[in-house]
């Protein structure tokens, strides 16, 4: 937690209000306005051309694929789409901003008025309104690393990489909510195929606006913008720190200054940045090099229809199949896992039992081995796991034997029926054979029989155990229990 905790009584006195501005890099192969590659990690200034270097005379040409992905994101967030949305220029000077302006959308963004519903702090369902979603281009990077004599180097590989910015309304009420919103947003964009959303590679970046107000008030306090939060955890930590800092200041009767602060991950504090960005006049005006984006209604509808099932719908579907909310959530949170589960369902697995087999038994083993369900090293296919679940359900093998079968399946890639047959693990459900084994156990353990007759009913358990031992665990435990009771009866 942050250096300054928020004492309980303070928490009652102040309400935290948070809005997030999230930048997401779109999963395109080329940049927003030129054909240069967007691949991560290339040597500096190797993915550049006259357009993204801002050579005199060069002109931007919008990337249709980027627009389509941005539209997918806007639709997934239930935004109202502006088919006639425009481009604007945001003017400011910085060495890594080659044109001296950024092409963005200001007056007419692609989407407005969306919403995202997710499980907030404590599992309660929360809906955050999306104020706007717009497209823009990324800037380059300034660096001092490896530069002689304190010089600044500029790498323009990132300049022009397509981004969307998603601005929420100030609907979040705490740091944990903010983190959960961000994670839900990430999952939604992943499902919609909009972005790789890798926070560590900078393909998802988040700034937060935080203010505190007296509990019960509906006015917003002085807004503080927090930047440089580079992981989901640091978002929550930074906001917890900031919440505490502002509460302590307000408790002490101080005023909160409207400012931009940077999160220092190592020291666990926010500090005021000396950035000139505040009070900056960006002199927005319509980008004269580009016409309206021009989204045909049919294109918007086709894109809407092409959206896959999104996390909330999948969660609802799993719950309708009888999965507890938490279990469904575990599957939905990992698109590869959910896809695996869906294939199991298609192969006929029972939802609840199949989910348990997948997320407890298979996943437990895979996690221990550091293998993903969608990795080729995972030798158990969803159809095979579904078949294993079927063997348990039909009573062909016990749940206990199933674990051994699964180990063998993982090691060999064999179908469960093949493993069962090869190893002779078929469950014994033959009444005659079980009756015979029960009689043998009774004959061999007169003392237990005497105990049972004397009223020690648990003596029967011992006899059942003896039968299971004699059949090396293959006997159907239910039938064994019945047989013992019958013979003793």
């Amino acid at each position, binding site marked *: 937690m942050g250096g300054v905790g928020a004492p309980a009584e303070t928490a009652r006195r102040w309400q935290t209000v948070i809005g997030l501005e999230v930048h997401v890099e779109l999963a395109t192969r080329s940049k927003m306005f030129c054909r240069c590659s967007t691949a991560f990690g290339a040597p500096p200034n190797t993915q550049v051309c*006259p357009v993204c*270097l*801002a*050579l*005199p*005379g*060069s*002109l*931007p*040409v*919008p990337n249709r694929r980027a627009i389509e992905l941005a539209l997918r994101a806007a639709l997934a967030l239930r935004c109202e789409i502006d088919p006639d949305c425009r481009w604007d*220029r945001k*003017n400011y*000077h910085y*060495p890594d901003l*080659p*044109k*001296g*302006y950024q092409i963005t959308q200001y007056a007419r963004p692609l989407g407005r008025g969306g919403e995202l519903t997710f499980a907030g702090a404590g599992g309660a369902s929360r809906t955050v309104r999306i104020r706007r979603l717009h497209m823009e281009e990324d800037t380059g990077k300034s660096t001092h690393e490896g530069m002689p004599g304190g010089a*600044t180097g*500029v790498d323009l590989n990132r300049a022009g990489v397509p981004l969307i910015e998603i601005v929420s309304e100030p609907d979040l009420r705490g740091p944990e909510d903010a983190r959960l919103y961000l994670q839900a947003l990430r999952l939604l964009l992943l499902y919609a195929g909009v972005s790789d959303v890798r926070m560590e590679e900078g393909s998802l970046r988040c700034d937060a606006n935080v203010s505190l107000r007296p509990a019960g008030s509906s006015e917003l306090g002085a807004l503080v913008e927090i930047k440089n939060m580079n992981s989901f955890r640091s978002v929550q930590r930074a906001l917890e720190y900031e919440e505490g800092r502002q509460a302590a200041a307000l408790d002490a009767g101080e005023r909160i200054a409207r400012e931009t602060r940077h999160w220092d991950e190592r020291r666990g504090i926010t500090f005021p940045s000396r950035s000139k960005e505040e009070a900056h*006049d960006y*002199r*927005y*005006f319509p980008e*004269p*090099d*580009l*016409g309206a984006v021009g989204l045909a209604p049919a294109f918007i509808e086709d894109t809407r229809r092409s959206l896959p099932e999104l996390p909330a719908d999948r969660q609802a579907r799993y719950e309708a199949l009888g999965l507890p909310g938490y279990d469904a959530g575990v599957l939905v949170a990992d698109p590869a896992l959910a896809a695996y589960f869906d294939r199991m369902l298609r192969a006929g697995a029972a939802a609840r039992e199949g989910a348990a087999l997948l997320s407890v038994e298979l996943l437990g083993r895979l996690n221990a081995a550091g293998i993903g369900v969608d990795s080729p090293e995972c030798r158990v296919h969803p159809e095979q796991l579904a078949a294993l679940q079927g063997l348990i359900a039909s009573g062909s093998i016990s749940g206990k034997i199933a674990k051994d079968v699964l180990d063998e399946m993982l090691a060999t890639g064999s179908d469960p029926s093949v493993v069962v047959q090869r190893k002779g693990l078929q469950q014994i459900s033959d009444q005659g054979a079980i009756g015979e084994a029960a009689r043998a156990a009774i004959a061999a353990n007169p003392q237990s029989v005497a105990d049972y007759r004397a009223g020690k009913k648990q003596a029967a358990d011992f006899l059942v155990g003896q039968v299971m031992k004699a059949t090396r665990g293959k006997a159907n435990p239910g039938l064994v229990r019945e047989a013992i009771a019958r013979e003793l009866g």
Partner: protein
Amino acid sequence: MDVAPYEWPAHQVRRALAAGQVSARKVAESALRRIDEVEPAVGAFLHLRAREDVLADADAVDAAIARGATLPPLAGVPAAIKANMCMRGVPASCASRVLEGFVPPYDATAVGRLRAAGAVILGATNMDEFAMGSSTEHSADHVTRNPWDLGRVPGGSSGGAAAAVAAGEATIALGSDTGGSIRQPAAFCGTVGLKPTYGRVSRYGLVAFASSLDQIGPLTRDVRDGALVLAAIAGADPADATCAAEPSPDYEAALRRDCRGLRAGLPVELLGGGTAPEVRSSVMAAADLLAELGAEVDECSLPTVPYALDAYYVIAPAEASSNLARYDGVRYGRRAAGAADYVEMFGRTRGEGFGPEVRRRIMLGTYALSAGYYDQYYGRALQVRTRICQDFEAALARFDVLVGPTTPSPAFAFGEKTADPLQMYASDVCTVAVNLAGLPALSLPCGFHNGLPLGLQVIGRAWDEETVLRVAFAFEQAADLTRRRPPLLGAGRMGG
């Protein structure tokens, strides 16, 4: 042949080459000799390509002819390019110190198309710095002199291009027109200058001044050449999102010797109080000639046009302030030496690199876009622009073309307007509205006053360069003025 090839129009070069009467090398040598002769007096060029490179291009045309290849439309035609268009390997300085040393690694689309059409490029022509000016006096390098009177300006900002064509140094030239920068120098230098419909010619590789107004177009000896060059450079370009997919017709086929069935409007606002009497009388005479040629001529009104200059001098500087932000010394061009940090380097590079007119417009534009002033200036100017478009639309619903003067006066003397920027801006009064409306317009000679050419402006409907060219051609053939040549150094001949 009694006239040297440097005086021929492009269509004559093509005919002579096709007939085997001349070689492309001979045409190029003639142009180069003419440049040697008159360039010291005229100063049309900022950069001339090496003689052997020019001749090698001409030889390539001759070799193609020898192979029996089909002659491209501008084969062997000596061409000059305004120094704000990128040509691979030729400095594109925009007549600015801030772009010193910048050599583009790529060709502008229009330049590439001109090359593909067989033109032999001579070099880059002088201009007002970043195309901001109406006299070419704002070049950071040198002034260009009007071939008709070396004491007068050639107009601007494409002054070098117009002077080169008028002086016989280049057969054709490409200029750019943001508020009249092709038409006004064409009028001052007695050439034909055509600003196409906005979006007709790709702007890719044209160094931006005001992106929503800039358009590349030809400066030529006659109207037929204008049609030829436009046909070569027009058409969709995937590298320019504002370049239209509109098909480019055969402009040469549109040329006819009469105006029968056409209606021509005379907007009274273009002949306002500031118009010199000789300009007014020559435009009225031109209107009479058009009527004789079969056109129905009548007065009309463009009520918002008097506000065009005000709107233009908000919109163009606003866009320029943003377009010129990239000249920061980081990636190319000039970089101020010895600066301690980026802010200092940026400030000093721009302070040293931009001339006073460019600095003035950057400041004007920055102010017009500032928070709190946007609605009052830029927003207001956009509203005026919309009204101007509506005015033109209404007038062009009644008329096929509108005609008027290109400039309120003939070429002025050096220094006459440099002291007062507003005076200089006022010389664009007849041309800027056309850019705001994005329409095609052509200037061609319609008379002479004290030995100085006067220009007639023909404005057409969007995408209808054909009718503009047809009217201009009919007028040109009847008036027989475009064959007059300036009485310049060793070129005493008049006509052919």
